């Protein structure tokens, strides 16, 4: 008779997950790291180890550097927009009003849509010839002729806006959960003490939702840095290469150019960048915690 200790049960339960994770994440990642140190060419039948040459090449690749700048701009824009939208809508939804439940369902809907569908909607919304936004502005008399939004210098911000619209519902629900843990008395006391809305938000609300906000920020950073669908569908990286992010560039190099070693190196460099960004978030959190403890 087998004695089922907690450890054994845990091993049995975790094994399928581990196998799945190994097959779908760990092995492909390790293999892509291995590829990144090789020069691979199917036509020339070449699979040569080249050390860190592919990484060095990335630093001198103008397109990769440009794509990095676009990615940074897109990530900052979308993270800020996700946070602003999440916090403000969560604060609104936290108030009691008629139809609150229906509103909560409506609010989560953009997150239920795929990124592809969101991008397609964005393309129609901002289209320069027959877009919905143009039609509204034109009918309201706010513009004299249609604007080519997706060809404008602010195309990255538009993409970030659509991305934030898609991702914000997740943040809204994280933050809403945090808001519901705030004791009602604290707010009442602050109001009696004459604290303004912003003071109450900073002193009473923020400490309770801080971790939810940080988690939303981390998720928004990672997700926006690795998105490609939004860019491919809405702008194709254009106009020119103004909205070409690293992920989209790597996708083109890897899947269309089939330069496997170089593409793998590019994605690992992106991953290193992301690890640095996320680590900084955690450093900020832990510093803040230490300050609070002292």
């Amino acid at each position, binding site marked *: 008779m087998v004695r089922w200790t907690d450890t054994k049960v845990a091993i049995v339960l975790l094994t399928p997950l581990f196998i799945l994770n190994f097959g779908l994440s760990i092995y492909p990642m390790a293999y892509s790291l291995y590829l990144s140190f090789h020069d691979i060419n199917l036509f020339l039948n070449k699979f040569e180890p080249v050390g860190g040459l592919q990484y060095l090449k990335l630093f001198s690749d103008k397109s990769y550097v440009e794509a990095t700048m676009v990615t940074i701009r897109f990530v900052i824009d979308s993270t800020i927009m996700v946070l602003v939208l999440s916090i403000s809508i969560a604060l609104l939804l936290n108030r009691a009003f008629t139809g609150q439940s229906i509103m909560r369902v409506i609010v989560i809907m953009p997150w239920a849509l795929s990124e592809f569908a969101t991008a397609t909607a964005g*393309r129609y919304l901002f289209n320069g010839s027959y877009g919905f936004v143009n039609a509204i502005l034109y009918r309201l008399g706010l513009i004299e002729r249609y604007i080519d939004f997706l060809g404008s210098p602010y195309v990255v911000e538009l993409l970030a806006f659509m991305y934030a619209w898609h991702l914000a519902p997740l943040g809204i629900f994280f933050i809403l959960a945090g808001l519901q843990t705030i004791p009602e008395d604290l707010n009442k006391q602050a109001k009696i003490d004459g604290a303004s809305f912003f003071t109450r938000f900073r002193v009473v609300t923020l400490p309770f939702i801080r971790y939810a906000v940080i988690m939303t920020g981390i998720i928004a950073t990672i997700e926006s840095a690795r998105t490609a669908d939004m860019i491919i569908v809405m702008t194709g990286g*254009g106009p020119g290469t103004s909205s070409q992010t690293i992920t989209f560039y790597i*996708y083109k190099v890897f899947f*269309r150019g089939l330069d496997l070693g170089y593409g793998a190196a590019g994605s690992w460099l992106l991953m290193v960048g992301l690890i640095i960004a996320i680590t900084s978030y955690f450093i900020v959190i832990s510093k803040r915690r230490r300050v609070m403890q002292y």
Partner: protein
Amino acid sequence: MVENKISRRKAISTAGKVAIGVVVAGVVAGAGGYLVGSAAAPVRTVERTVTAPGATVTVEKTVERTVTVTGPVTVTTPPTTPTIAWPPWKPEPVKPAVPLKWVHWGYRPDIITENIEIFMRQNNENLEQEQITGPDYQGMVETKFLAGEKFDMVYGNAFMAFRWIELGFTNSAEELPHIEWVKAEMFESVKRAYSDKQGRLAGLTYFVSATPALIANDELLEKAGMAGELPRSHAELYDMLRKIKQRAPEGMIKPFVPHWFNAFWGTVWSLLAEVAGRAKDPDLTKSMFGKDFAPTFDAAPGDTVYETVSDWRKLVDEDLVERAVISASSDTVGTEAFWTGSYAFGRLNGLYGYWNTMDPAKSRIAGKATLVPVVEEALGVIDTGLYCWPKNNHDFDRSARLILWFGYKDNEGKHTSAYKWAKEEFLHTAYPAVLRDPDVQRAWEARLGPKTKETAERSEKWLETMAAPWIWRSPLYGEWMVKAPDLMAKCLAQEISPREAVSEMRKIADELWKKYHG
């Protein structure tokens, strides 16, 4: 199994030789007979059937003059092409347990599925399909090849087909039984376009078209006082766009929707098509990449590539084009814009782009659009889907039958697949007989109305004159086509000059040439 395969192929080859022998003998005899024959003799038909192991060949000859000759069969001039007894295969006696597999990019899956059902029914076969959608189709298929996956038929673009043969992933179509009969029925231009460096046919036709189709909006041209005027060259088109802008017809947003989206079949194919037309260089060996694949273009005045890119930029600078196209990753944005009816000319994906423009459910200018004819310059580059034949297939004979059935004729000797695509989607085929078939013409008439005849003639001319870039046969192209669109997109977005764009494209081409051919 291997022995069986060889013997069957050998038998077919023997049958072919016998058939050729009969024809040669017939022609010699016919020629002799002509010299001695009587001009007043009645017409007769002589038929002879030659049977060889595995195949039956029937030779039919029309005898126009009575002749007295000695020989195996009596024929006279003009000799006609012998016809084989089709199909050169038999249905499976028992439905195979292991299914064949077809990998495709999935356009109109309903037609695909319907064809699969007919194929299975006629051959007692078992066929599965796998659909790969999206712009990374080529990469996904090559991953399958590399992983050693078995499949029996795969869609490929011409440049993909050449690459796959070179990499040893696919067989050329030359290894198919009776390929000479298939080739005899094809447009010469398509045959040339499908032939690899060694002159081998890379695959059989799913469809063949020319892109980007140049379409005129009749209504806007009329409003601009240019009713019925159509450009005969790219230069004339651009002059017309300027005039149209000046005349500013009511309801016009911009005179032109170009085909300049950020994808290899956008800016790159537009460039290939236009340079080939302007330089009268259908394989682009004089104006872009030589026979040895070395780049020949340059950022210098007088160079067709440079002049073309410069002209495009001028169109942007003069605000003659719909700029939304430049911020698009596919043809959808431009196509939908053109269908609003607010543009005088549009360049749409493939000749089928015209078919869809004439669909009232999609387009506001249905019935009021014209396919611009090829007059002084060729206007398109080949846009095609090939049935390619993977080497790592489930069974040589079964997969060969699959390719022949879809890419040529079914068990009843009909071009079932090609007919269906031609009738329902205006997808052209390599076989002119299909395009000229009254049934197909009637199907087109239902949508194109009075424009049917002119469109049919014009589209054949497009196919006869379209560019078929020689560079597609080099691995250089695969990498160049990924980098070039970015440079052209930057130039069209007014970020860099045409000189910078073309110089950089040349630099990349030089590096790639050294890498692959230097």
